[in-house]
């Protein structure tokens, strides 16, 4: 590899990026738009969801819980007399779910709260429980209902006593996303989407453009090696991605007050690998599709759509059918979404960061290998 050649190619690439308004648009304006849409436009916060509440208990605690839900802005509670009534209303579509407070709830609750030693395991069946049933036809809303309802229950319990009562389920994410603002966990997905577009989309187009205009043909007939071409394509777009990432992150933090609990080191580590993977995918797409139209379609199908739908960013991976869950494993977006989400909301959980980085690195190595095999100095 010759430094002069790489330098010449990189400087060419930089000039082209600077002169092409669309790359600036994609790298900086698009993130703003995406974050604006997710920040204001698309609200995944649920409010005024119609719920049935069946109180089978007659104690004081159950009344307090009923009041808790009834006064919440998230739920619009209808008190049903029997479980059957409530079920009917859910089946007819009038309500989205049921909260059931079982018999002896108050008794168990008070017993659990005050009557037990802290280190003594409670006997099975004597735990205070509420049951949350949600309409599974919309798994996404269902997941949110479950999370909000159980979260509120937990918070209420915690406000009475610091020791955790064990209830049906506590949604982890809600737990950390204490303000329950959807932008906070959508941020991770938005960032992934932005990096996929800048990294994969732009590079896919850029190489395809060279094929389309016939410049690639001239380039490969010169004494340039494959690695020089690959490096000169990766470096400028890598830098562009980093700029875009920093810009979007600052924008999210400053404009939407998205928390960032992690360290720069952890972010750099996982972002570097993910950006490399994105760019490599872009390059592989362009070597396969030699015109811009096919390349953009390819980039769309391989990165954009999976990032949106299969990364756990909008739709819960857990609520997907098993085969689809298996499919999500091969898309890099999933790992980056989970890393950024952890970094933003929790902090440096190294077990998660390192695992994701390792998987992404393995992908990068594999992609680099296949790119080298695919991109030969040949026009076929």
């Amino acid at each position, binding site marked *: 590899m010759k430094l002069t050649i790489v330098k010449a190619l990189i400087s060419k690439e930089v*000039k082209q990026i600077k002169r092409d308004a669309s790359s600036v648009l994609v790298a900086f304006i698009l993130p703003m738009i995406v974050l604006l849409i997710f920040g204001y436009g698309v609200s995944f916060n649920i409010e005024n969801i119609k719920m049935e509440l069946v109180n089978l208990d007659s104690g004081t605690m159950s009344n307090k819980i009923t009041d808790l839900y009834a006064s919440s802005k998230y739920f619009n509670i209808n008190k049903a007399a029997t479980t059957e009534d409530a079920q009917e209303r859910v089946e007819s579509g009038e309500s989205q779910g049921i909260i059931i407070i079982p018999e002896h709830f108050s008794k168990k609750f008070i017993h659990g709260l005050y009557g037990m030693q802290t280190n003594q395991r409670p006997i099975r069946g004597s735990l205070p429980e509420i049951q949350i049933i949600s309409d599974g036809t919309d798994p996404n809303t269902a997941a949110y209902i479950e999370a909000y309802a159980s979260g509120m229950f937990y918070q209420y319990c915690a406000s009475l006593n610091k020791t955790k009562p064990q209830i049906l389920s506590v949604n982890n994410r809600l737990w950390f996303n204490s303000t329950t603002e959807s932008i906070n966990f959508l941020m991770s997905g938005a960032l992934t989407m932005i990096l996929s577009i800048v990294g994969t989309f732009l590079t896919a187009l850029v190489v395809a453009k060279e094929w389309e205009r016939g410049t690639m043909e*001239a380039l490969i*007939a*010169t004494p340039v090696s494959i690695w020089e071409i690959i490096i000169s394509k990766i470096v400028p777009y890598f830098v562009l991605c980093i700029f875009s990432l920093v810009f979007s992150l600052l924008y999210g933090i400053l404009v939407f007050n998205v928390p960032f609990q992690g360290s720069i080191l952890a972010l750099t580590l996982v972002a570097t690998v993910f950006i490399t993977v994105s760019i490599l995918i872009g390059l592989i797409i362009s070597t396969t599709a030699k015109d811009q139209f096919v390349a953009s379609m390819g980039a769309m199908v391989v990165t954009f759509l999976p990032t949106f739908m299969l990364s756990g960013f909008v739709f819960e991976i857990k609520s997907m059918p098993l085969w689809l869950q298996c499919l999500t494993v091969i898309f890099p977006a999933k790992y980056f979404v989970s890393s950024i989400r952890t970094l933003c909301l929790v902090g440096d959980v190294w077990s998660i960061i390192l695992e994701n980085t390792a998987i992404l690195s393995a992908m990068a190595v594999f992609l680099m290998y296949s790119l080298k095999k695919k991109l030969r100095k040949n026009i076929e």
Partner: protein
Amino acid sequence: MISIDNLTKTFDGSKIVALDGVSCKIRSNEVVGFIGPDGAGKTTLLRIVAGILTPDSGNVLINRQSLDFSGKDRDRISARPLSKPPESDLMEEETAHRSAAYLSVRQGDECRHSSTGLTHQKTDYEAFGKMSIGQLQEITSYMPQRFGLYEDLSIIENLNLYANLHNLDNTIKEEVFDRVLAVTKLSQFRKRLAGNLSGGMKQKLGLACALLKKPKILILDEPSVGVDPISRKDLIAMVNSMLDEHTTVLWSTAYLDEAEELDHVILLNDGKVIFEGSPSEAKRCVTNRVYVFADIQEKRRFSAELMKEDGIMDSIIHGNKVRFIKDQDTAVESISKNMGRKFDGVRSPYNIDPAFEDACIDMLGGIVEKRSPLEEYFNTTFYDSGEDGIVNAIHLTKKFGRFVAVDDISFSIKRGQIFGLLGPNGSGKSTTFRMLCGLLKQTAGTARIAGIDISDINSDAKVMIGYMAQKFSLYPILSVRQNLEFFSGAYRIRSQEKKGVINQMLEIFHLTNYQNMNAAVLSLGYKQRLSLACAIMHRPRVLFLDEPTSGVDPITRREFWMHINTMVHHGMSVIVTTHFMDEAENCDEIALIYKGKIRASGTPDDLKDRCRNSETATLEQAFIEIIQDVDEASP
């Protein structure tokens, strides 16, 4: 020396055979032309020699070293010293071999099969070791068809990039840039983006980029395609002035007149070598077989009748002359006598020097189709509408922002005439053309067709017009028949007639066997036939042709013009733009447009008469002189 040994290359799962056992030799330090119609295999061959395409089988030897396409060494290789056989021995041996080859041609007598006479001796293909692609690319410069320029980089940035890619020494860089910019006359545009240059300038810049580091082998793939005669002349001059005697040039072109000026040509057709040798050698085969009838009144009917005579291989109209090639066995006297019987006052034809194109047509077997079946199809004759002309352009002007593309152009085209719009790239001729057929709205002035203002023409009146675009506006994923069906609907052919018309078109243009094939997979010649069929099936009164024959082989071009001439004979009017001077010779009237104005108009002979030495002038010289005069008057 480059030896190409039995190269075969197929594409698309061996469905398309691009090269079918091509063998030829390229001597060092010569300019060698690769000529042939589109799809003949020129580009494939050049790409293989440039090392960017791997052949299915066969060998390329460069100075006796066989190119290693295996791919193991595809990255740059350490500068391993080339094991060169002594150069002088090689040259001697080569000359000996070549004279033997010439001899075999002459003995073979039948010029048409001269390539089979050139049976290369096996020893020429014995390799003295291997050359990697990396090594090849160190000594080669390649300019692909679209020049390989970065349109969003300036001239100087493009030069800089290619200088670095070719490892040009930093210390001499500026000096080299100054030199190439001076030769290309691009010095004053150093900072202009390549995308904003005209076609001719792009071409020169592309060539300049390829010539930065004096290559041992220079490969130019159709550097002159779609370029006007002036830019083409400049290009050849540039190659000659910038190279020293140690460069071998591989130059592919579809223009046969361009090939005439080269040292050595290799004619390809359908992936096979048809001829290999010098153009003058090729011409020798048709010496004393090319004749001209002068001062012909009804030139189109005369040419058509002449074609029907026995022993005529080709006949074309040149101004008011008709030029023809006869076969070896037919005496010119009998042709003259037969024609004299059909036409009054025919003087006997005189012999002229053949052109390379004549030789090519002869080698390709001459024109097979002797008459156009359209004669029957165009049974109705169009008569004068009583006006001065069927097409009238009156003070047409077109401005794009502040730029005046067409500046007050007026002309008229009569019934049954062919009107040629000529001009360099970017002169305004395409803009004029588009305004006339209603594709572009003029800024000022009017355009009338059969008395109707083109901007008022409703779609009913548009059936008077037929239009054939440069890139053939066919639907690639529709079959041949479906394309015809579509256009028959678009041109309002009555549904009860449709089937008959389509079948007639399929028959006339020999498309019946291909009717269910998609238009995309047709060869260029067939695409051209199909798009002509689509444009004329409704018997238009005016036919618009926008560079209809670029890249098509000479035989197909002759057939094309035979069809056009037949329809014109029945009163159809044709307006055509072209870069081929022999097509311009076929026009009744020519308007030469340059910098938005008509600079000269008249018959082809009128234009030639205006030349400084009008006796020997060709239309091309007239073209060049007129434009130079304009440039001198207002630089």
